[in-house]
């Protein structure tokens, strides 16, 4: 009964490939996020969706395309992978409607681009 789950946990691929990471939450939350954590542990927000609508879109290459088929899922598709895309990607969710609500994080997907 994992609250926020991500698949796959590890992803190793060649430069130039296209790959997807999936995220699902069973908490009934309205808002979901994708973060990128680099090798120095710095967490950078990429996208946020609220009820399937994009609400935050930081400066991210358009090779990254999020998709939210329903409010429990937020997937991340990456085209033409580059070496610099290697990182750990975290999905998170939050119940909207309160500024004191905390985010719940998935276990992360470690992407390695060779």
């Amino acid at each position, binding site marked *: 009964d994992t609250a926020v789950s991500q698949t796959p946990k590890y992803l190793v691929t060649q430069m130039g490939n296209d790959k997807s990471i999936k995220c699902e939450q069973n908490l009934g939350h309205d808002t979901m996020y994708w973060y990128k954590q680099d090798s120095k*542990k710095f967490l950078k927000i990429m996208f946020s969706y609220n009820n399937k609508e994009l609400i935050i879109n930081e400066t991210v290459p358009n090779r990254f395309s999020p998709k939210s088929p329903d409010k429990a899922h937020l997937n991340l598709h990456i085209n033409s992978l580059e070496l610099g895309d290697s990182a750990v990607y975290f999905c998170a969710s*939050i119940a909207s409607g309160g500024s004191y609500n905390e*985010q719940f994080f998935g276990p992360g997907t470690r992407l390695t681009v060779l």
Partner: protein
Amino acid sequence: AQSVTQLDSHVSVSEGTPVLLRCNYSSSYSPSLFWYVQHPNKGLQLLLKYTSAATLVKGINGFEAEFKKSETSFHLTKPSAHMSDAAEYFCVVSDDGGNQFYFGTGTSLTVIP
């Protein structure tokens, strides 16, 4: 605009001694503040959060943090470090709507036996 500064990128303490991880924030309104912990190869777990109900906030695993508005600080403390506390710690502030979160750069805590 909101931002968070974690003053130490690395902190080392001996087991059984106190832990202090420093965090200063910048916010144009009364902020929501959080501390998260990330153990190696794991996701982030909430330690505690400040919700304006009390300035001293108690969290899990014996951690607590004190909100000091005059100093714009939200430092994390624990009286006695345990080996299992070795991890990366993130201080976070959220925006007024509670939709966007601003992370500090993290503090890596090492506990020496």
